[in-house]
C-alpha cells in the first residue's frame, strides 16, 4: 500500500504504508512437533443453515428429530470445502443484486434512534493527487496518550534513497519535539483519514522515533477518546 504525504517544507512524496502486526511468541504444533495451519471451511450454505432448516420443518422439535435421523444440515458435496477467494454480495429475494440502496441507521449510545440517512461512501484519501497535509499542529505524546486510544497503527517506509531522507527528517523532528503531528487529508486539509472507500474515518497522528541513522515513522490512528461513557456517569 502507498501513502502520499507532505513534509514540513510542503514537499510531498509517495512512500510505502504498511500494516503492523502484533509480536507472536506462541505457535502451535501437532503431536510430532510439526507446524500446523488454520484454514477456513464451508460449514453450511444458506440452503442448509438454521434459518432454512426451520423454515422447512416449522418447529424446533421436528427439526431436532430430522437432524438426528437424516442429517439435513449437511450437503455432502460442499460440506468441508476450503473457502478461498470469497467475496461479499448483497442478496434479496430476487437473488444476487448489484444495484443496492444502502441506508445508515444511526443510534445514540443509549440505543435510541438518532437518524436514518442514505449511505455516503467517502473515497480513500491516503494515496490521491492531494497529499496528506503536514498541518504543523503538534500534540505532546503524553497528552495524546491520556486523551485518545490509538486503535490502529501503520508504518511509513521509504521506497528509495531520496524518500529515506524525506521520512528520516520527519521522524527526527517529531522525535526531538516528543510530539505527535496531526495529519489531515482532503483538498482543504481538514478531513480525517479514510484508508479505503466507505471505510471508517480516523484521526491520524504521525509519531517519529530515531535510533542513530534508523527511523521509525508511525501513523497512529484513533477513533475513540479515553473517556467515561455518559451512561456510566454518576455511578461512581
Amino acid at each position, binding site marked *: 500500500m502507498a501513502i502520499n504525504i507532505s513534509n514540513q517544507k510542503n514537499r510531498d512524496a509517495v512512500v510505502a504504508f504498511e500494516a503492523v502486526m502484533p509480536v507472536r511468541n506462541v505457535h*502451535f504444533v501437532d503431536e510430532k512437533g510439526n507446524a500446523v495451519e*488454520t484454514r477456513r471451511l464451508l460449514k453450511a450454505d444458506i440452503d442448509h443453515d438454521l434459518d432454512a432448516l426451520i423454515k422447512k420443518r416449522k418447529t424446533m422439535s421436528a427439526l431436532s428429530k430430522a437432524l438426528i435421523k437424516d442429517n439435513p444440515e449437511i450437503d455432502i458435496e460442499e460440506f468441508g470445502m476450503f473457502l478461498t477467494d*470469497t467475496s461479499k454480495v448483497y*442478496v434479496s429475494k430476487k437473488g444476487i443484486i448489484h444495484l443496492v440502496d444502502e*441506508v445508515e441507521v444511526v443510534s445514540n449510545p443509549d440505543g435510541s434512534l438518532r437518524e436514518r440517512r442514505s449511505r455516503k461512501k467517502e473515497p480513500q484519501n491516503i494515496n490521491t493527487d492531494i497529499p496528506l497535509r503536514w498541518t504543523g499542529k503538534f500534540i505532546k505524546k503524553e497528552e495524546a496518550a491520556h486523551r485518545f486510544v490509538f*486503535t490502529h497503527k501503520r508504518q511509513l517506509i521509504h521506497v528509495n534513497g531520496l524518500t529515506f531522507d524525506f521520512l528520516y527528517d520527519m521522524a527526527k523532528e517529531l522525535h526531538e519535539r516528543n510530539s505527535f503531528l496531526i495529519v489531515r487529508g482532503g483538498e482543504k486539509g481538514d478531513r480525517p483519514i479514510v484508508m479505503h472507500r466507505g471505510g471508517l474515518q480516523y484521526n491520524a497522528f504521525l509519531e517519529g522515533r530515531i*535510533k542513530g541513522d534508523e527511523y521509525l515513522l508511525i501513523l497512529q490512528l484513533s477513533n475513540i477518546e479515553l473517556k*467515561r461513557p455518559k451512561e456510566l456517569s454518576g455511578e461512581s
Partner: protein
Amino acid sequence: MPRSLTLSLDGEEFSVQLKKIDRNDLYGSVEIEAFDEKGNPAQLLVLAADGKTLLSKGGTALATLDAKGNSVERNTLKPVNTEGEDIETVESSFGKSNTLKLAEINDYLSQIVKSIYILEPVENGDIKFLLDHLSSGLVYSFPFSYRGGTEYDNAFIIGNKADAFMVIGKEARFQFAKLNQVAQLDSIEDEEISGDDIDFDLL
C-alpha cells in the same frame, strides 16, 4: 456483573471492577440496511469462489491442518515458543494479586489495542489511591490474561485526570528502517507490448 480484579501498587492492594467500553458506548453506532431497486430488503452474504454458493455469517468454520492437509484435533495441539520449546500456560489474572509496574509511554503507544476497560471501585471500596498516582500522568502495566491460556496480553493502566482505564494490547512488531532496507510499492508498471503478446485463446 462486572468482574473484579485485584491490583497491587507500591505495596498497597485494592480491587477494581472492569467495565468494557467501546466506540458505540461513547458515540453511538451505525448499522447498514440494504434494499434492492424495488425496496425489498437485502442481506450481505459471502459468495464462494464457485460463484454460486452463498453463506451466511455462521456458515464457515476454522479447521487446523497438518503439513499433509489432514485435519488435526485442536486438543492435541501443543503451544511452543519461537524456538520450538514447550511453554507453560498462564493463569487467569482474576483471583490473584497483579503487581503494577511503571511503564514507558512509548511502550504503551506501541501496543495494538484489543480492548478498553474503565476501572470502577468495588462495592464499599475506592480507587482514590490509584487515581492519585495516575493524576501525575504516570502509566502502569502488568501481564494480563482474562481466562488464562498460552500467553499474557499487556495491560496498561492509564488515567485521563478523572477516571482510570485499563487498555489491553499486544506489542506491535515495529522495525526501525535503515537506508538499505527499501520497501516496494505495489504498483502496475506501464509497459509497451505488441499485438502478438495478447492471447485470444482464452476468449
